[in-house]
């Protein structure tokens, strides 16, 4: 009967799979590279994975509230926040704080806009966030003609800095992740999210404030996307229109591959990191193998599908 508790533990902690997979790929990568630069590989991977993880957390919260909720506006929020914050900073340190404030404002506004469309205008979340995404992208395109969009030097350095070989932003957001994990497990809000995601009807009858919960997750998602956009722009030395191209797919992929249930109610926050690392390391490994972009994409896609097929994901009826 020892097997049963283990099985249950694994089921409750699906994030283990994504970390195991990431570890395997990492080992494979440095093996192929003749055991060179194991820590450097890991460090770089952590740095890039951070961006996926930040938006992944926001998307995870939205998806966990129920199978009908998703946030497709994330890449647009990222790019708008990136441009506006860089534009405000204008490569001066004096612009650092205003720039950060602008980014947060963008995230907040995006979240509020989504909530208004979804709950106020009763538009299905997929279309609502799609439409708001279109509009934000459009604003970004218009804005991009006017600004040079360079980060404040402090922010640039910060985004590239390391502490004991680990990227600072990774450290910070790991702490944030742990914080969100606590929120999910030990706060009323966290319980509300998970209850609504499991059974919205039962949640209503148990007295959970569903509208408030949904509003909060969308606002958090907006804020996280904005912060990710600002940091990514700084990291890259400036914002660019296609900087968040990947992020729509990646924000969903890292959530699902990390073990979060797409129909809601089960959130695996650690898994978001595991999946982010895993997906980035796959790309690294294929690069080391000298494989071209084409094979990289195909392998990534097949892995996503295979992992999904093997997992317990089921479309809610």
């Amino acid at each position, binding site marked *: 009967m020892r097997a049963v508790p283990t099985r*249950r533990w694994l089921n409750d902690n699906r994030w283990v799979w994504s970390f195991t997979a990431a570890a395997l790929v990492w080992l494979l990568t440095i093996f192929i590279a003749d055991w060179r630069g194991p820590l450097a590989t890991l460090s770089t991977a952590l740095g890039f994975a951070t961006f996926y993880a930040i938006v992944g957390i926001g998307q995870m919260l939205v998806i966990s509230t129920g199978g009908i909720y998703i946030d497709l506006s994330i890449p647009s929020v990222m790019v708008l926040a990136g441009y506006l914050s860089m534009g405000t900073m204008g490569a001066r340190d004096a612009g650092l704080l205003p720039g950060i404030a602008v980014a947060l404002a963008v995230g907040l506004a995006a979240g509020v806009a989504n909530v208004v469309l979804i709950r106020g205008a009763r538009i299905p979340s997929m279309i609502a966030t799609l439409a708001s995404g279109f509009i934000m992208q459009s604003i970004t395109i218009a804005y991009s003609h006017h600004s040079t969009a360079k980060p404040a030097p402090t922010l640039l350095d910060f985004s590239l800095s390391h502490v004991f070989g680990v990227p600072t932003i990774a450290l910070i957001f790991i702490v944030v992740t742990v914080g969100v994990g606590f929120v999910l497990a*030990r*706060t*009323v*809000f966290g*319980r*509300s999210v*998970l*209850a609504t995601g*499991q*059974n919205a*009807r*039962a*949640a209503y*009858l*148990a*007295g*959970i404030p569903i509208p408030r919960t949904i509003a909060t997750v969308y606002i958090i998602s907006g804020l996280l996307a904005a912060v990710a956009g600002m940091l990514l722009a700084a990291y890259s030395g400036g914002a660019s229109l296609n900087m968040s191209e990947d992020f729509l797919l990646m924000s969903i992929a890292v959530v699902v591959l990390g073990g979060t249930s797409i129909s809601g*109610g*089960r959130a695996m926050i650690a898994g978001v990191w595991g999946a982010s690392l895993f997906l980035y390391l796959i790309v690294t490994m294929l690069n080391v193998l000298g494989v071209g972009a084409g094979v990289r994409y195909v392998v990534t896609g097949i892995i996503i599908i295979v992992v999904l097929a093997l997992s317990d994901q089921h479309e809610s009826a």
Partner: protein
Amino acid sequence: MREGTGSLVALEGIAKQFGAVRALAGIDLVIDPGETLGVVGHNGAGKTTLMHVLNGTIQPSSGVIRIDGVEVNVGYDVRRAYALGIRCVFQELSLSPNLRVFENVRLLHRSLSGFGWPGRARRVVRETLDAIFPGHGIDADALVGELPAAQRQMVEIARAFSATDRPVRLVILDEPTSSLGGQEAEQLMRYMHTATQAGVSCVFISHRLKEVLANVERVVVMRDGTVVAQQRASEMSEGQLVERMGVMAQTAERASTSARPERAAREGGPARAVRIDLRPSPRSPARLVVHAGEVVGLAGLDGHGQRTALLAAFAAAQGGGGEAVQVHGTVAYVSGDRQGEGLFPLWSVGRNLTIGSMGRLAHSGWLSRRAELAEARHWRDHLAIKTPDVEQPILSLSGGNQQKVLIARGLAGGADILLLDDPMRGVDVGTKREMFEEIRQEAGQGKCFLLYTTETAELQNCDRVYVFYRGAITEEIDRASLTEDRVLRASFGEAGVHV
């Protein structure tokens, strides 16, 4: 029990297990050609499951199905049933709302294909609708989603009786009149009669016992997955049916669940606060009132407005209410539909329990693990919920214990008012007794309970009972004057004293 010779359908020893739940426990049933059979029983008795087996949508775990004397078990599915002339109108309407009436008819008949099929489909549905419900006024091109419930049901019934390439030999009607008006229901009964004269058998499942008795030859009563009675309709009365459906072997239960504790004398004491004041139906001035410390029951046949009243009270407490509903105090809702409205399936026992006490347990939004576990354990012990560890997944508990968790959830929150929606359904006698004792205790400390139950025996636990019929209160019965007969008659709208 009749002989199997010449019968249309013969079921022998049909059993069905869903995991740990035994939905059907060895059913023997025979249906003859041109016969109308009535099937009655409470929700969860197994009627619908049995019909699913007959219709081929569910495979029985064991037992034999014979059609025309030939065993059909292997590979018996919906298509074979259709080919053999069996049709079924399910309780949950299964029409596709995004399709038109004639398109929905096409879905049932594979032969309606090829060139000109829309015309044929329209003709078939019009002819059948005209035959069953003369003067129906339903357009074959109407979108089902835009039809009122009554017309949807009419379409579904007509579809079942419609024949294209295969003759219809047996039609199963599961609560066919639940949305029909009086005239349509009568038309359907008349058509059933006509159909049986033409050799078509009908199985008629309904909660409207009077209707059943008046229109079938034989009645079968089901309870807990078995057939508990089979007799000619002419030999049974409504009262007998209700008795066999729910209260039959429950004399022991009645004695044990009806705790009659001493009650503090009401006369002369301070007037107790009114917690709920609700008028269920705009057509009747009768109101439902619940005071602090009371246990009030809602009775009557299922689906006659009791649930609506409970939900209205819940919504009013959230902010709302008005002239028709006034609620004073905090509420908690306990549902008997565990899967649909109660449980959070991925969570542990403890989490399912404490989700109702978030307000009390949390300090500035933070939930201490220790406090949470303590609360869960306290209620586990208090209600004797059988689980060694409150962190076990909720689905590992038995149905009765799951229900205890839901009741604990409602009590733990400290709400003034508890709304209970048939919470003891499918729960064993011992658990029921414990729960009602708990309710009595809590009531003694000032909580009030509004309890809807489909088991008349449970009403013994209530101080007062309101009987519902067709969305309105037909009678208010004090515990002292509570008799089964009185409840029964009020359930059919034959009220004596109106409120």
